[in-house]
């Protein structure tokens, strides 16, 4: 049985291959509840693969992972109830309005319809009734963040959350991270904006070519070390 509370996410020898390509070599980590983990590494390091494995979007080819004690393979549905993944594609329907998209997300996520409040949080109230196809990339990104607000995750997985966002939009990522943390939840963010990301983080994991090259407390990681990790060097 799972033990909610203590550990938000853990992985033991977690690995994933795509045919002959190894996307993630055996990785182990433990993220306490209420903590924020920053994943750094160059393109193809395995950051997105790790996030998608924890989100139950991919199945591991070796090892195991759990979210709040729920195994990501055997208890995938329980994991999906507490975990929200905001990927690089916004996952919104272009033919629906922003409000309709969020109302749909609320219905599918089993939440009350708080679409209007979520739109207000991300500064999209004025365009709530506009079709998403008329939105800029940054506005779609904001809408994806609104969906995450609305679904109230205990584990939030953010893949490249700062991309396409203006300064205010980036602040929304900070606010969302702080909000999840304040409710006892955890956040894992993978980003190339590592200078900004490390300010939010409690832990840093460096990945390079699918390998876990470093695991450290965010307070211990100096900017030169962080730059090296982001470039795939130890």
């Amino acid at each position, binding site marked *: 049985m799972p033990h909610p509370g203590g550990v938000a996410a853990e992985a033991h020898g977690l690995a994933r291959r795509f045919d002959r390509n190894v996307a993630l070599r055996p990785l182990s980590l433990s993220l306490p509840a209420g903590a924020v983990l920053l994943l750094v590494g160059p393109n193809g390091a395995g950051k997105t693969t790790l996030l998608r494995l924890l989100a139950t979007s991919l199945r591991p080819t070796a090892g195991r992972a759990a979210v709040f004690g729920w195994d990501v393979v055997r208890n995938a549905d329980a994991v*999906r109830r507490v975990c929200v993944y905001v990927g690089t*594609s*916004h996952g919104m329907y272009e033919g629906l309005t922003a409000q309709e998209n969020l109302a*749909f997300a609320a219905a*599918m*996520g089993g939440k009350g319809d708080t679409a209007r409040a979520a739109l207000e949080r991300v500064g999209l109230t004025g365009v709530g009734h506009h079709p998403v196809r008329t939105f800029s990339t940054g506005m779609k990104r904001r809408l994806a963040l609104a969906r995450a607000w609305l679904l109230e995750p205990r584990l939030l997985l953010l893949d490249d959350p700062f991309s396409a966002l203006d300064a205010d939009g980036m602040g929304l990522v900070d606010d969302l991270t702080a909000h999840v943390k304040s409710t006892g939840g955890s956040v894992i963010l993978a980003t190339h904006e590592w200078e900004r990301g490390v300010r939010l983080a409690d832990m840093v994991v460096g990945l390079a070519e699918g390998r876990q090259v470093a695991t450290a407390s965010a307070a211990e990681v100096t900017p030169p070390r962080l730059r090296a990790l982001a470039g795939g060097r130890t």
Partner: protein
Amino acid sequence: MSAWQRAAALARKDLLLEWRGRETITAMAVLALLVVLLLGFVIGADPARAPAITWVALALAAMLGVTRPTQAEIEQQALETLLLYPGSREHIYWGKWAAILVQLTVLLGMLLVVQGVLFNVDLWPKLPALLGVGLLGIVGLATLGTLFAGLVIHVRGRELLMPLLLLPVALPVVLAAVRLMEVVMTGGPGGLVWFGVLAAFDMLFLLVAPVLYDVVMEEA
């Protein structure tokens, strides 16, 4: 939020998107109309042939349209998000199924009108029975179509594969629907037998398809 409410939300979303675009229903209607006109001219507008022509048109149009609600998820890059909502994937199946069912029912209504006009069939006295038969057939087509749309979701050339998968398996449904519609229109014997065949296949597909869909989408 129950699974049925999730299915209803998904069906509503799919129908809303279709209503705003009207791409699938238009293509299905045009194809069905062309098939009816072509077969009507080639083999003659004999009222006895109307049920067969109607169902051939409906089955071909279904093949064109049943993949669209699932395919649209990929085109909008929303499939991963959809699959990561909590709950069984069966509710996704029922949501897609309901949206397809509504579209095929609209198409059936149009085809019955065309049948009445082109084949000079007096539909009004038999309309409730014809709609009943139509719905039974459509349930079978939608049930199989939704499953196969999920099955071919990541297959290249799925548009080519879909008829090869759907037609042979849907054959008993189409055949029984044609025969039952003939019986309704002519008042001939054998209605109960064909009703039994159609209902049995519908039940079988309704029981098996959602379970298989759950497995298929878990691997998607």
